[in-house]
């Protein structure tokens, strides 16, 4: 299969403008006759459904949640990037583009990333107009902060709840279109299959989660905005319901899955506390602006801490190893996520971890509290502030900046992070891989589009902080409303798609058979227990550090687990009722296949790049990329025995490929 990314001709900075200005348009009277299905109501799906509705398309929108507002995007904390240069600190569209390409370790498409940077500024305007209460300065203008791995302040934020506020903005725009009848909303409807007619995506099969009823929904095209697949690891910062099934069912219908092994492991999460753990909680990256990461210098001290005999405060400065500052003097605690995560693993693997399990490092605010306390005392004109006064003033500043995060930490761990250092450890957070799409965000299946975390397009092998919200909203508000026209302009003569064609009936039967098959197993083990075991295999063999032998073994173990699942899973209840266990079973079944593809992809990519670290490909202990052999996107066609690799070569015309260095 020849993969055509359909990147427009012309200068990088002009591609999008020229393309947009010359593409085929669909006239308003024709839009009224065209039906579009949008699956997902996260930032990408809600913004797309609302905007397509505003343009006059008939939109049907689906979510498995009980309300569009509950999509996983709601949980994003830290912020959203935009090249506004409001701070006059040298930011520009080109710089955001360059940072994103470099941050992604040169494994993304120049043209897509440049377009993303261009759209970023419009997103902020749109969100402000919707009433998103971004943080502001006293002068009434928008505030910014700098965020993970970049040297300008371009991140807009709404306390630690930026995703919530942006999603509520998109949800309100969507609600307005629902009220107008432009969007028909289907809550608690899960897409279980894709329907193709003559090779084109023409509909989906859904299950009404309240009644179990299967429905056939037809449209001229289908847009998936169904989020990421981090939960293949079971433990991740994703919401419990996040899953890969919509994308995976499309793969089964011929769509290609790109770069499955590119996973972001976030360095600042609350460590695992026990076997019962069901999910992991992220502590926003913004904490690294002020917190210092360290472990004890000696294993003896670490062991005393693990046994609970010593605490962070008991160790004098000279016995601490601020290993990020030591190893990466230029960026210190602000190195990109993948670098920070691996360094935490290295420290813990050396036996220097600071929690009971040995898997955890400190994130310490004591210095920040001192620093802020002193400067606040100075600005208040307090001549000789006491140590307590400094601490009090410093804590107040830290509270104003990170109060809700500190509170969240205390709720979960029962420890007060103002008094004792936080403990953190990396956790699976975001998946850069996803459905392969071209410049139009169209998959290789005509009429099937993918947006947001569900596609692979903009972050290469590693995503920069505050860029997922930007991408989801760029895709939904500013890209798909145009590029969907490239497909639909040729469909204006296609009449309404009927939902009772043989293709639809066959797809519905396929879904029914699959559900019946799962129910009929009637084994002895719970769905959850299989998911947990899959997660352990993934973390052990496909986690922060990978090697050929482990990946082969991991793949084998996943295949065995899949076999066992189909022999011994137990699902209570029936298919024709509200049955959360059945919902989970169908999702875990898909993860059991995706997990294998993940291992296959990680094995194929014999280089280290971004979030993908191959032990065989290092130099002086740091990751070593191999541009000669691996400057391509891996787009996989699924096959039970041997997935087939299709390569999209990446060409760089505007940036020079460099080794990322944060030293």
């Amino acid at each position, binding site marked *: 299969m020849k993969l055509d990314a359909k990147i427009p001709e012309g200068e990088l900075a002009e591609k999008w403008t020229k393309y947009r200005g010359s593409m085929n348009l669909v006239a308003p009277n024709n839009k009224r006759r065209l039906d579009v299905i949008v699956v997902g109501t996260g930032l990408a799906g809600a913004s797309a459904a609302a*905007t397509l509705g505003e343009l006059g398309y008939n939109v049907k929108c689906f979510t498995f949640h009980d309300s569009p507002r509950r999509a996983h995007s709601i949980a994003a904390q830290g912020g959203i990037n935009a090249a506004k240069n409001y701070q006059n600190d040298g930011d520009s569209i080109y710089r955001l583009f360059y940072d994103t390409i470099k941050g992604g370790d040169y494994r993304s498409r120049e043209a897509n990333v440049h377009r993303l940077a261009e759209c970023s500024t419009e997103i*902020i305007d749109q969100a402000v107009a919707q009433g998103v209460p971004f943080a502001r300065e006293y002068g009434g203008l928008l505030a910014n902060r700098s965020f993970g791995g970049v040297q300008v302040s371009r991140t807009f934020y709404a306390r630690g709840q930026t995703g919530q506020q942006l999603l509520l903005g998109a949800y309100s725009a969507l609600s307005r279109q629902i009220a107008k009848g432009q969007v028909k909303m289907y809550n608690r409807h899960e897409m279980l299959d894709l329907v193709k007619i003559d090779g084109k995506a023409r509909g989906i099969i859904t299950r009404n989660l309240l009644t179990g009823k299967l429905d056939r929904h037809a449209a001229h095209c289908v847009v998936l905005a169904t989020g990421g697949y981090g939960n293949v690891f079971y433990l991740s910062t994703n919401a419990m319901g996040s899953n890969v099934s919509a994308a995976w069912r499309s793969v089964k219908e011929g769509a290609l899955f790109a770069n499955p092994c590119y996973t972001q492991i976030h360095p600042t999460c609350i460590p695992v506390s026990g076997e019962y753990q069901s999910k992991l909680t992220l502590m926003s990256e913004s904490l690294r602006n002020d917190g210092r990461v360290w472990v004890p210098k000696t294993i003896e001290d670490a062991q005393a801490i693990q046994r609970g005999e010593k605490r962070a405060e008991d160790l004098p400065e000279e016995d601490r190893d601020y290993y990020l500052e030591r190893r990466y003097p230029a960026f210190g605690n602000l190195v990109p996520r993948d670098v920070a995560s691996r360094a935490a693993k290295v420290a813990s693997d050396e036996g220097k971890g600071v929690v009971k399990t040995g898997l955890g490092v400190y994130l310490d605010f004591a210095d920040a509290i001192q620093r802020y306390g002193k400067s606040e005392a100075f600005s208040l004109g307090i001549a000789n502030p006491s140590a307590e006064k400094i601490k009090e003033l410093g804590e107040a500043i830290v509270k104003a900046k990170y109060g809700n995060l500190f509170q969240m930490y205390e709720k*979960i761990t029962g420890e007060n992070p103002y008094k004792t250092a936080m403990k953190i450890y990396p956790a699976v957070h975001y998946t850069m891989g996803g459905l392969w799409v071209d410049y139009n965000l169209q998959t290789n299946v005509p009429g099937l589009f993918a947006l947001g975390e569900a596609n692979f397009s903009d972050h290469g092998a590693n995503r920069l902080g505050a860029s997922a919200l930007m991408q989801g909203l760029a895709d939904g508000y500013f890209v798909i409303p145009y590029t969907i026209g490239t497909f639909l302009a040729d469909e204006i003569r296609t009449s309404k798609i009927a939902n009772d064609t043989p293709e639809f009936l066959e797809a519905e039967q396929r879904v029914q058979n699959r559900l019946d098959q799962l129910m009929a197993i009637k084994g002895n083990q719970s769905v959850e227990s299989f998911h947990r075991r899959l997660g352990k295999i993934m973390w052990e063999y496909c986690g922060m550090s990978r090697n050929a032998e482990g990946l082969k073994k991991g793949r084998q173990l996943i295949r065995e687990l899949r076999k066992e699942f189909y022999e011994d899973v137990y699902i*209570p209840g029936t298919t024709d009722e509200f049955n959360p266990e059945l919902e989970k079973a169908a999702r875990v079944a898909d993860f059991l296949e995706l997990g294998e593809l993940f291992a296959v992809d990680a094995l194929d990519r014999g280089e280290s790049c971004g979030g993908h670290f191959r032990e065989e490909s290092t130099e002086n202990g740091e990751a070593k990329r191999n541009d000669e052999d691996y400057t391509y996107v891996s787009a996989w066609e699924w096959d039970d025995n041997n997935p087939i690799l299709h390569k999209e070569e990446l060409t760089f015309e505007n940036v020079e490929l460099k080794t990322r260095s944060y030293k």
Partner: protein
Amino acid sequence: MNLTLKIWRQKNNGSNGHFENYQVEAEEHMSFLEMLDVLNQQLIEKKQDPVAFEHDCREGICGACSMVINGRPHGSQTGTTACQLHMRAFKTGDTITIEPFRANAFPVIKDLAVDRSSFDAIMQAGGYISVNTGQAVDGNAIPVEKADADEAFDSATCIGCGACVAACPNGSAMLFTSAKINHLSKLPQGQVEHSRRVKNMVRVMDKEGFGKCSNVGACEVDCPKEISTDNIAALNRYYLGSVLFGQD
């Protein structure tokens, strides 16, 4: 720790519910929902029907979790959702009663899961600013005083969980509705449609079967985001303004 759970079991909306007792072994660092996971794992192993409950983010932001714990929506810890509760708040030997959110406008689906689509209906009646994609001016063209922006934010943090409704003896949705209205009204962008928004959202709130507010104040106490009843007072003023005096 050893716990006795007294849980509301109800097969579906058409059937009657009842309490059932279960024994479960928990650990202090577990979250409340992880404790329920342990119970469900036990039930599944015995091939019994697991307890249905809503949850997703498990970090207090999606608003999915919704249960009454020992008589209080989300339990008795202030500013905390059920998913953020940890078992260190309980001790061995405790009996914990767990019920669904009960309100006229939230029909039970199964066990602890209820249907809160009535909140979406209120939002659709006017919980937005009418601006199409692409119509916005530059973000800094609309300065907003920091205090106003902060106040708008405080109201905007509502997670749409419905605890306020479950806490209210009248099953009123005033806290939820007023929080959204106040969020938008505090911002210059939200002024244009203010009066219409107030009228329409209040009308749909009544139509969806929520009760009247009689200033009990239980909503604020149990709201996990500590949304203040000042929002309700403001809405009452707006409502008088827009309905009685026709002010815009």
